[in-house]
């Protein structure tokens, strides 16, 4: 039982760090996709959706190749902190972030696109620069959709298995998450232990998705339309 609690806590910690990475990068990406026209936009669109379409195991392999001891990011981290990130909980968080990113960005993009851009134009006309417009107009009006995207990304990050096991392994107490612990217990035939973790997974997913649906339903009516 004790180990179950620590497995759940580690999973929450990994999903939390993953979302801390997804939120700023994802919102910036979504803003570009929703509000800007630029050359190569379709490439950015494809790149943000790709992890959704590929097998997570392959994503893990690509990440391993990109962050391993022989790659330049891997070497840079090693020389800065003196550690390899591969097979650490941070690596698990990176894997979870990459897999959760497309889901969150999709939700962020539609939330930002739903804000009436004339309000942003009006704010510019009142003397606000682009960053101020974003933080005082766009973000507050898109906040429900963005929170919904965060919840969706969080449950995806929490359930991540394929990419995680490749880049972070399944080391009890260090990188063993709820899904990888379930995998281990299935292999060893410990069914009752599987059901305990399964219950936790279901509870977290139901709470997060329920909140997600509630937020989207609430934002439907008042998605930052100009009050004319």
């Amino acid at each position: 039982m004790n180990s179950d609690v620590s497995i759940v806590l580690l999973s929450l910690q990994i999903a939390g760090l993953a979302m801390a990475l997804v939120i700023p990068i994802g919102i910036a990406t979504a803003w570009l996709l929703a509000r800007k026209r630029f050359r190569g936009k379709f490439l950015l669109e494809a790149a943000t959706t790709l992890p959704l379409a590929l097998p997570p195991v392959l994503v893990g392999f690509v990440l391993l190749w990109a962050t391993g001891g022989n790659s330049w990011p891997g070497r840079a981290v090693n020389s800065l902190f003196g550690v390899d990130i591969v097979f650490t909980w941070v690596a698990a968080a990176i894997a979870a972030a990459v897999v959760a990113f497309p889901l969150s960005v999709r939700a962020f993009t539609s939330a930002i696109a739903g804000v009436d851009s004339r309000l942003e134009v009006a704010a510019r006309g009142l003397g606000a620069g682009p960053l101020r417009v974003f933080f005082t107009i766009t973000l507050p009006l898109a906040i429900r959709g963005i929170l919904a995207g965060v919840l969706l990304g969080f449950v995806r990050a929490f359930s991540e298995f394929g990419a995680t096991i490749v880049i972070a392994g399944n080391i009890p107490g260090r990188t063993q998450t709820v899904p990888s612990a379930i995998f281990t217990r299935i292999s060893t035939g410990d069914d009752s232990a599987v059901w305990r973790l399964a219950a936790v997974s279901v509870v977290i997913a139901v709470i997060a998705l329920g909140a997600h649906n509630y937020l989207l339903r609430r934002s439907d009516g008042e998605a930052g339309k100009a009050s004319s």
Partner: protein
Amino acid sequence: MTHNLLRENGSKTGSAKTILEFDVTVNRPEFSLHAAGSFGSGITAVFGPSGAGKSTLLGAIAGSVKPSKGHISLFGRTLVSTSEGVTLPPERRRVGFVYQDATLFPHMTVEKNIAYGHRLTPKDQRRLDPSDLAELLAISGLLQRRPSELSGGEKQRVALARTLATSPELLLLDEPMSALDIRLRGIVLGYLKLIHRELAMPMVYVSHSISEVLAIADEAMVLEQGRVKTFGTARRLLNQVSTAEGDAGDLTVDNILEGQIVESHTSGEPGKVRIGRAELTAPTGHREFGEKVVVAIGSQEIIVATERPVGISARNVLAGTVASLDGDGPRRMVAVDCGAELMAEVTASAINELDIQPGKDVYLVIKSSSITVMDAFRD
């Protein structure tokens, strides 16, 4: 209540003085605008059908549209000069913009909406105080409300206050009435004139409604297909447009007449207004006896009858003579002299059936509620 709204550097009045000069070309694949002019410190209307380039010209002045060539200066300050390579960003032009729809920020109270631009205005440029503006525009009681709790006219007044709180040197209005019904238009027009008078605020007013232009503007520039067709006093514009046959397009042509209040009730009941030799029962509001007004009646609001109607709820039945018949489509303009000349829009089939022709005696039926009474052109 409106004293002291202007601090010293705000009194840039002087009627004939040119404050805005421009000569701009905007080239787009499907459209080009070339317009030059100099606007005074009064209210200048930019008038023309949809697609004439009115909003593009306003955008060039405000900074949302980049001219391909030309210059714009405001109070001698260069806003744009393509030959000198100068293009000021919108936020440094000190030009205020009020849009067709109020575009109020829905997540902020009225008070925060008004404060938004005021806080971003450098302290030494602030000469209009938000609470004074709220009082002037009669929205002080609405400050804690959300935009969704306001009526159309209130929204537009809040939008006006929000823009004025940035202390602009010039106010641009892009069809600010188009989302309002005719009764609210009169009220908002009254506020615009009040703002202009109290704050000495020069305005450029884009509209495709002649009645609005006449009610508010001193001068008017008529744009057509991206070119300046005429520029002169607003009165001259009326004559030109109303005499041009079938040229009205989507322009709103109303009966615009100067008149005087001859009866009014403090209770707010309809009073009487005299136009020429005709007297009309009309909503005179709280205007006083003898006050000069402008009366607008839509030509579609007037019914033509060949016999005096009896037992009718409409308050105005005027006897007159048909002066002329205009137009050759299914809808014709009948000009009737009934002590004042009024234009009524009538279908071609009704003209045939009633045998309407110049010289014929007719009666005009007008509901008092279809008459709009506005303040006189200017003091």
